[in-house]
């Protein structure tokens, strides 16, 4: 192969050499040379989206469900600015994606040229790193470095801005193995002395809890495997953040459910009452600790994280371990076994009894109804009818997202894709398409709210065009439900603009896109309707009309500690104080 080629060709060559099989993108003037190269090859599949935000969320769905970086190609100016929400989403949730943007030619940069935007300037705070490539000879190496940085250390989005003249010019291609990446090699092995302290904590803990997060999933399949081994061998209870669901199986005997603002009673109280907290790849996001001052007051804490800035950022820990989850867990297991695999069995058994008592509270219970479909019931039936299938779930953002997290179960990592850190309405539909493109034969369901879903509904066209049989399971409460819930609890039931007015007829909408529409509003019909959705060979919009004023519980009100959790309707009057009201 000659190493001399145009910048545009280099882009394709570099993507191939990086093992990329799919690019999500949208053309425009500043990327036409690259699109011309895409046209002349068959190895890389291009998915034409309907909006650049959709492209980035698709790439996120692709990345999270495969563990491989997602790739996006968009044009300059508006193409790049439309990608900003997706980039920020990926940054917050540590998702590896590589975004290529076109730029006006180098000699026009700074002249306010047509479709010129300061893309690297705009995206600097919402990427892990970004580059403007001004020289074709630097292009291939930069792309390889971009893949390296996106996937090493704490993963994240990177962006490469490529002026059009750089795409046309000829330069020398550099293959991946010759690209310099040695300047970015985050440490993966944990400090030996700290690991020893953690092992001592494990040996003596009386009320331990594993608190795990998205870092376990990002670390790769080995991390989940090692986590399962350690948890099962110690017999300690394990909870997880929204981001970490599936790393430890929901069917596993030590699983005590998700924690956090809408997490399970037993999980949050275990966090509050533990004497040893072992944080594995989570970051004490503010949805987790509630009031910092009262967070888990009696515990010693260990924190395993690959990002030094996550350690001691929110919560001070006694045993910080900087490193990759899989590497650290491997060393912890080895050392703990070498020292005799000891735990304080008697105390831990008592602790389990306590957790059992909390569990008996049955915090997810809700008042069933024969007339209206309760949203919880809808998710429960979805779970019952799809469990055991080769299933991937994405969500939008709102109450439905929390009900999905509470009532769906995940036994494997990479099966659950939700916008955690940024809380991006409009994430779920495109993400579900990205997942489906990566797993054509799987059942991919987006558990959605009607308001969120409308935010990127144009991507239904993408699903139909590329025969992605994604199922859009919309819990339609005709409300911005989560906003409505906060207004009820916090703003004197003044429901300011939290209604979904003038909604489209979702069944007709589906048909207009060339997809299947299903509507269901009676509990008695629900199972059949869900089965119809699953068995339809193509994309489906499922308009599930649910109870409109259901609130999502349990809930730890903003500014409250874990042990002041609300369980149901009766407990919700005047619970959020003035201080809590300023929190989000």
């Amino acid at each position, binding site marked *: 192969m000659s190493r001399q080629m145009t910048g545009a060709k280099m882009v394709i060559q570099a993507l191939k050499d990086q093992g990329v099989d799919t690019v999500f993108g949208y053309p425009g003037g500043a990327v036409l040379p690259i699109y011309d190269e895409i046209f002349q090859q068959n190895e890389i599949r291009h998915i034409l989206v309907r909006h650049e935000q959709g492209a980035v969320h698709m790439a996120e769905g692709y990345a999270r469900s495969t563990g491989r970086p997602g790739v996006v190609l968009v044009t300059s100016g508006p193409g790049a600015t439309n990608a900003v929400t997706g980039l920020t989403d990926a940054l917050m949730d540590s998702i590896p994606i590589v975004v290529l943007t076109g730029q006006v030619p180098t000699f026009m940069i700074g002249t306010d040229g047509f479709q010129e935007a300061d893309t690297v300037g705009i995206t*600097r705070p919402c990427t892990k*790193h970004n580059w403007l490539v001004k020289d074709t000879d630097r292009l291939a190496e930069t792309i390889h470095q971009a893949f390296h940085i996106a996937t090493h250390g704490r993963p994240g989005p990177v962006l490469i801005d490529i002026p059009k003249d750089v795409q046309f010019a000829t330069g020398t291609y550099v293959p991946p193995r010759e690209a310099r990446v040695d*300047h970015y090699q985050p440490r993966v092995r944990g400090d030996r002395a700290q690991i020893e302290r953690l092992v001592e904590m494990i040996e003596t803990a009386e009320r331990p809890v594993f608190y795990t997060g998205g870092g376990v999933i990002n670390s790769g399949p080995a991390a989940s495997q090692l986590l399962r081994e350690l948890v099962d061998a110690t017999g300690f209870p394990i909870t997880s953040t929204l981001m970490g669901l599936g790393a430890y199986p929901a069917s596993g005997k030590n699983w005590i459910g998700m924690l956090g603002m809408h997490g399970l009673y037993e999980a949050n109280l275990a966090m509050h009452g533990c004497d040893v907290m072992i944080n594995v790849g989570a970051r004490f996001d503010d949805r987790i600790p509630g009031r910092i001052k009262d967070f888990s007051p009696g515990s010693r804490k260990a924190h395993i994280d690959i990002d030094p800035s996550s350690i001691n950022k929110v919560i001070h820990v006694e045993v910080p371990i900087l490193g990759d989850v899989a590497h650290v867990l491997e060393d912890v297991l080895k050392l703990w076994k070498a020292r005799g695999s000891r735990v304080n069995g008697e105390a831990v058994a008592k602790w389990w009894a306590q957790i059992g008592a909390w569990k008996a509270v049955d915090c997810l219970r809700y008042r069933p109804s024969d007339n209206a479909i309760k949203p919880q019931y809808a998710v429960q039936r979805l779970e019952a009818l799809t469990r055991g299938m080769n299933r991937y779930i994405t969500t939008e953002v709102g109450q439905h997202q929390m009900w999905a997290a509470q009532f769906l179960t995940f036994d494997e990592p990479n099966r659950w894709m939700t916008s955690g850190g940024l809380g991006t309405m409009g994430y779920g539909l495109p993400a579900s398409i990205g997942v489906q493109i990566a797993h054509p034969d799987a059942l991919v369901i987006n558990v959605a709210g009607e308001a969120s879903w409308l935010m990127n509904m144009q991507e239904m066209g993408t699903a139909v065009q590329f025969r992605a049989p994604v199922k859009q399971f919309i819990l339609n409460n005709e409300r911005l439900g989560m906003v409505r819930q906060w207004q009820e609890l916090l703003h004197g039931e003044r429901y300011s603009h939290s209604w979904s007015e003038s909604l489209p007829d979702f069944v007709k909408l589906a048909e207009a896109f060339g997809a299947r529409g299903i509507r269901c509003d009676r509990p008695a019909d629900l199972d059949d309707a869900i089965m119809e959705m699953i068995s339809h060979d193509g994309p489906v919009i499922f308009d599930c009309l649910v109870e409109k004023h259901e609130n999502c519980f349990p809930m730890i009100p903003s500014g409250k500690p874990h042990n002041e959790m609300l369980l149901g309707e009766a407990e919700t009057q005047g619970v959020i104080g003035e201080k809590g009201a300023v929190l989000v």
Partner: protein
Amino acid sequence: MAALNIKKGSSSHSAYDLRDPHAQAVERHTLAVIVDNEAGVLARVIGLFSGRGYNIDSLTVAETDHAGHLSRITVVTRGTPAVIEQIKAQLGRLVQVREVHDLTVEGPAVERELALFKVAGTGDKRIEALRLAEIFRASVVDSTLESFVFEITGTSEKIDAFADLMRPLGLRDVARTGVAALARGV
């Protein structure tokens, strides 16, 4: 506690610092940040400070190793111990940042600033300005019949003090470089 062997980052590190993170006293720290001398690196460092609400008292930057393509950014910042640790950790994870040194805790360091002062006046005031300049070892780098430009180097405190003295004597303009700092010894 065991020393950490982190490629990037100073001996005092976010995760391994022993000082009480809950202490609320605000401290002034001088950080030396060694970065790849590439486009956008300064914007990234400054954006980090503004985006996360950290303070910058002084910022100095220049290429220091042409062959190695490295620049040195000296930042003087303020914050509680926990915030200072967070700043260092955040700086350390920027891709273009090679090393972060906290000169305030890594041992004794020399800090210097250079400043130019334009002082205008005649008669006694002019004579007094010149006399004080001598005491401060400032040198005259420009003069007219009504004005001087003094050049002075020293710690920020010394330059502040000089500015206070010049103000009633006809101070017109000041240009300061910001702090440059190096650890003492080898």
